[in-house]
């Protein structure tokens, strides 16, 4: 790769590969700084950057719709024919942990080492949306029971700062409440989800190779705070909070750190274990 740090505006030209690597976050820090300085001086260089910014951003939404489209039966059947009992189900049999009281569960290998951490989804929480035909608006179920956030929810999780509400479909509003890292080097967000019929849920979604997956969600009884803003009841959110604690590596992020992540499109961080 051309070493952009050696490049001056009037001599050695900066290659398209270097500009592309800058946009894609693959340029070493030293070269990145040098290129930023060159970009500040050279409008033509900035213009050349446009192709790479354009093909990194607007293309994705067109294809992301595919992620939440129902899997064709012929493919599901092909895999189901030999599929093992994939999801590790937790039972509502009344263990001491709050997690064990949740109705249904699945595990997310991308979050955990070989012995996967069981994480949970409250079946009822999915139900109140699915019962209203909102499946495509909220998540799609893959054939192993995993939940891929809808395109609208993906967009809201991807770019909405904490404590700000964003549309997540025609009936839904999403409000991120915490952003945190996992030990596996990924990022997760806790959120509140409000349905236009007044119901609400609290959940956690994690980003897995560019795709937000809903890890846990539980219905909550909405209540109005002193400003009249509807918020989920604290006790129910505590369950999701406990899941957050189980997944979280380090502190939840502050607003500045979170804003940087959003700007940089959620770059990977080193695994800590």
């Amino acid at each position, binding site marked *: 790769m051309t070493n952009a740090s050696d490049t001056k505006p009037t001599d050695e030209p900066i290659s398209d590969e270097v500009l592309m*690597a800058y946009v894609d976050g693959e340029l070493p820090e030293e070269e990145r700084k040098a290129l930023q300085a060159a970009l500040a001086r050279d409008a033509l260089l900035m213009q050349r950057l446009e192709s790479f910014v354009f093909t990194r951003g607007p*293309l994705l939404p067109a294809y992301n719709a*595919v992620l939440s489209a129902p899997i064709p039966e012929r493919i599901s059947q092909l895999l189901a024919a030999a599929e093992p009992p994939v999801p590790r189900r937790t039972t509502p049999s009344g263990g001491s942990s709050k997690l064990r009281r949740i109705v249904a569960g699945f595990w997310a290998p991308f979050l955990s080492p070989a012995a996967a951490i069981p994480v949970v989804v409250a079946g009822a929480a999915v139900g109140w949306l699915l019962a209203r035909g909102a499946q495509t608006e909220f998540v799609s179920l893959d054939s192993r029971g*995993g939940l891929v956030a809808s395109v609208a929810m993906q967009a809201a999780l991807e770019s909405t700062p904490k404590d700000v509400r964003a549309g997540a479909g025609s009936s839904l509003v999403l409000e991120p409440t915490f952003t945190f890292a996992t030990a596996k080097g990924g990022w997760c967000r806790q959120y509140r989800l409000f349905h236009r019929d007044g119901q609400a849920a609290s959940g956690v979604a994690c980003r897995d190779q560019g795709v937000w997956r809903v890890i846990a969600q539980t219905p909550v009884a909405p209540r109005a705070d002193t400003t009249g803003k509807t918020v989920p009841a604290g006790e129910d959110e505590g369950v999701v909070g406990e899941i957050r604690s189980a997944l979280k590596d380090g502190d939840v992020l502050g607003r500045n750190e979170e804003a940087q992540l959003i700007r940089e499109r959620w770059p990977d961080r080193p695994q800590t274990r």
Partner: protein
Amino acid sequence: MTDEFRTRMVEILPRLRRFAVALTGDLDQGDDLVQDTCMRALSRIDQWQPGTRLDSWMYRIAQNLWLDRMRAKKVRGVQVDVDTMDALAGPNGRSVAESRLTLDAVGNAMAFLPDDQRVLISLVCIDGLSYKEAAEVTQTPIGTVMSRLARARRELHARLEGHKRDAGPRRSASRHGSDL
């Protein structure tokens, strides 16, 4: 191993589908490719090494199946639909740029790209793989990945933004470097 294989295979299905649709430019054809990829993967389970990335392995299978199909089409003389391609640019070359980028619009523009470049756009720009990961999937040196990808992105941008002055539907997209 079998259970792990199948579990992970199901898990990556949505992304594999997106990759297949990006390659083929069509949801139905993409699903055909996914189905064939899954069948091929299931029949060659012994070739996957636990501990390696299953998604990369399956992407490689999908890529190879698709490239084989494209080669077969070329042998049979099947061409890109020129009318469709020309319609993309519009009368003043800006019709796509001035409208929302739909799957069809991006797919049509992608159809101009050489097959190897289309694979790289799908892997890096749509699926978010790093250059190194894309190099592993395509089994191509990283420098080649970068040069092909940069070329493809300039071409795609020109197609979609209507900036291209010399658009030609069957022209080889093999321009390089300083042509902007």
